[in-house]
């Protein structure tokens, strides 16, 4: 897929991947074998009818292809950009299995048809059934909640989504950077749901204005879905983490994405524009943070990670992009302490050199310290991107809702049903930090389970 030049793009916030044009889409679709047993669909958490939509692309009917995708996936422009297709539909694609080279680029085709449909939007919305009189409250407007909202409104169930922030989309707007997922795309997907009748309330903190119990009892929602995500940042608990210049990835990304700090001073919110930046962690959020820091003008950005390139949990594509743009990788390095100056600003990180030992429970080789080998990295900004825990606000204010020892809501992974009657949950608040598409899958499963309970097919 065509991309912006790495040197150029490391200085702007425009989207990196430029997307297919019509010819490239036709060419790629023609590679699909239209298998009788479409293994690709088995790899999709929301079960998009992949062979059918790709067949429509092949025939040049891009609009119908988009509608086909939207039957199962209410957010195709988003999924087409941030899904790890290489470990889902494309991993199970027969072309991949037969060793015939690259799998069909299903994700890129999904993105293409959805973008095409948005560009040629006629304002048309799917025909909606008569309202059933049922209504569902959704806590959190992230990928799980939006997907559930889309699935329910199409079946005549009224939906109200409650969002604590001022913008809709959850992690899609505060976490994922503009250059991977433009905010305008999230807005257009949300607008589509609004056109279908989904009601959205921003600045609405469930657990503070009213509780989940209030939504059920006072506001008479027939059921409630909790999709509040994994929103509490983890820190390493090493000395110096409260120095100025030290951010959680959540804060750094929220400032530059949601609050548009990259436009400062045109937008009011500032963010430290570090000269030398260290990012702790090796996941997608670490890559997003590092690449954002580069675009904000840092001279040197280093990923500090305990294992090696082979164990990086980030998508290969994200790592590749980061490397291309000039992000450095300080591997087998574990931060011991952040060093500060008199005024309370970070000036460097002391690290422990590691080596790989025996595999741990996750199957990855466990990093162990090399005795006596420590080193120092000079830096003025540190971004801690080692993961997120469950935010306790909603679970702790909801009666009879079971949580596990990490504070995640206990819910059936197939249906999303929780220990509390009429309450479903899904996405990161249940599973711990995972991917956008898994949250969308959870939203879809919960919607199907609710519909079953409502006796709607």
């Amino acid at each position: 897929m065509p991309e912006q030049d790495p040197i150029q793009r490391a200085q702007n916030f425009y989207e990196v991947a430029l997307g297919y044009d019509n010819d490239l889409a036709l060419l790629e679709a023609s590679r699909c074998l239209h298998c009788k047993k479409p293994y690709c669909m088995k790899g999709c958490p929301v079960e998009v009818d992949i062979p059918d939509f790709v067949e429509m692309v092949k025939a040049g009917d891009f609009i119908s292809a988009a509608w086909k995708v939207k039957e199962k996936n209410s957010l195709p422009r988003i999924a087409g950009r941030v899904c790890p297709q290489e470990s889902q539909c494309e991993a199970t694609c027969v072309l991949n299995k037969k060793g015939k080279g690259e799998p069909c680029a299903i994700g890129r085709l999904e993105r293409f048809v959805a973008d095409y449909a948005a560009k040629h939007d006629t304002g048309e919305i799917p025909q909606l059934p008569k309202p059933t009189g049922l209504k569902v409250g959704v806590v959190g407007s992230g990928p799980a909640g939006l997907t559930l909202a889309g699935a329910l409104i199409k079946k005549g169930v009224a939906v109200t989504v409650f969002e604590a922030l001022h913008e809709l989309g959850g992690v899609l707007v505060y976490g994922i950077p503009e250059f991977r997922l433009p905010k305008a795309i999230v807005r257009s997907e949300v607008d589509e749901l609004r056109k279908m009748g989904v009601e959205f309330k921003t600045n609405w903190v469930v657990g503070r204005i009213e509780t989940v119990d209030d939504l059920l009892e006072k506001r008479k929602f027939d059921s409630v879905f909790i999709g509040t995500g994994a929103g509490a940042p983890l820190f390493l608990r090493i000395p110096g983490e409260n120095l100025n210049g030290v951010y959680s990835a959540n804060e750094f990304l929220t400032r530059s994405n949601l609050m548009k700090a990259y436009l400062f001073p045109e937008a009011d919110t500032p963010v430290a524009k570090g000269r030398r930046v260290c990012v702790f962690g090796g996941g997608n959020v670490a890559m997003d943070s590092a690449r954002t820091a580069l675009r904000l003008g840092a001279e040197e950005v280093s990923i500090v990670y305990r294992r090696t390139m082979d164990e990086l949990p980030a998508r290969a594509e994200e790592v590749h992009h980061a490397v291309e743009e000039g992000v450095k990788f300080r591997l087998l390095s574990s931060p011991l302490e952040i060093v500060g100056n008199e005024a309370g600003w970070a000036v460097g990180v002391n690290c422990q050199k590691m080596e790989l030992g025996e595999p741990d429970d996750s199957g990855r080789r466990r990093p162990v310290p090399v005795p006596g080998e420590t080193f120092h990295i000079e830096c003025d900004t540190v971004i801690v991107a080692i993961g997120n825990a469950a935010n306790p606000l909603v679970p702790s204010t909801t009666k009879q809702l079971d949580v596990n020892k990490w504070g995640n809501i206990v819910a059936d992974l197939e249906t999303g049903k929780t220990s509390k009657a009429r309450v479903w949950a899904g996405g990161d608040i249940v599973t711990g930090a995972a991917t956008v598409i898994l949250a969308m899958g959870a939203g879809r499963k919960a919607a199907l389970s609710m519909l079953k309970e409502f006796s709607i097919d």
Partner: protein
Amino acid sequence: MFEILEKDKIGPGVNRAVISAPEIARAHRPGQFVILRAHADGERIPLTVADKDPGKGTLTLIWQEVGTTTYYMGTMCVGEKLVDVCGPLGKPTHVEKFGTVVSVCGGIGAAPLYPITKAMHDAGNHVITILGARTEGLLIMTDDMKKVSDELLISTDDGSFGIHGFVTQVLQDLIDKKRKMDLCVAVGPVPMMRAVVNVTKKANLPTVVSLNPIMVDGTGMCGACRVEVGGKTMFGCVDGPEFNGFDVDFELLTKRLAMYKGPELISLNRFKETPRGCECTFPGGAA
């Protein structure tokens, strides 16, 4: 949206506004705050709620013009709307009948302290309020405070009104006179809260302080508001804003509050140079 229904200047650079926010007004408890954005490119800033009227669905906000958002809000007029007001946030004050409660505030701190003092008074406590400011013109909410205090002591640093001296001296006086006090609640600038704690710690008078770290989301998602209390890192927005004053690392708080001093100045200067098309006052406010 959150319409401004009343607005006036109650001191140099100090504004008071009543805004429409029915759901927050209903849910708000003393000690809780809101996070607001004044306009579409604005910053999210935390502001304590000075008063509310759940019946009318309104909140009273009081703020001092210090940064871009507060200056901007100083230029806003009745009928204009704040784009976002989110709340109530933070844990409410723990209110019970302690016995005698001494409420201490400095300057603008009177605004957040008023609902707390009122709640303490309503709970049957004997309330002594010490209201201080640099100078007479900066004293706010004296009449409101009088209504919810059994004793009201006013001091100014320059002696232009009331007792000549700092609020800490007035508090020390009460301690020296062996007045029985069971709890101290202190709200105001960091140096003032720190000084109060220095006094009350020696007298072993339990002290609650309300902290104002820099925040972004206000729901525990970003961790910008990290404070150290008793050696542990806490989030001001969800674990606070009130903490045991004896355990707070005020030095860290002071340093963290200065994190964006440079950008804040750039932003404010830029704002003051750009006229804001509102006729009722000068761009950038009067200060």
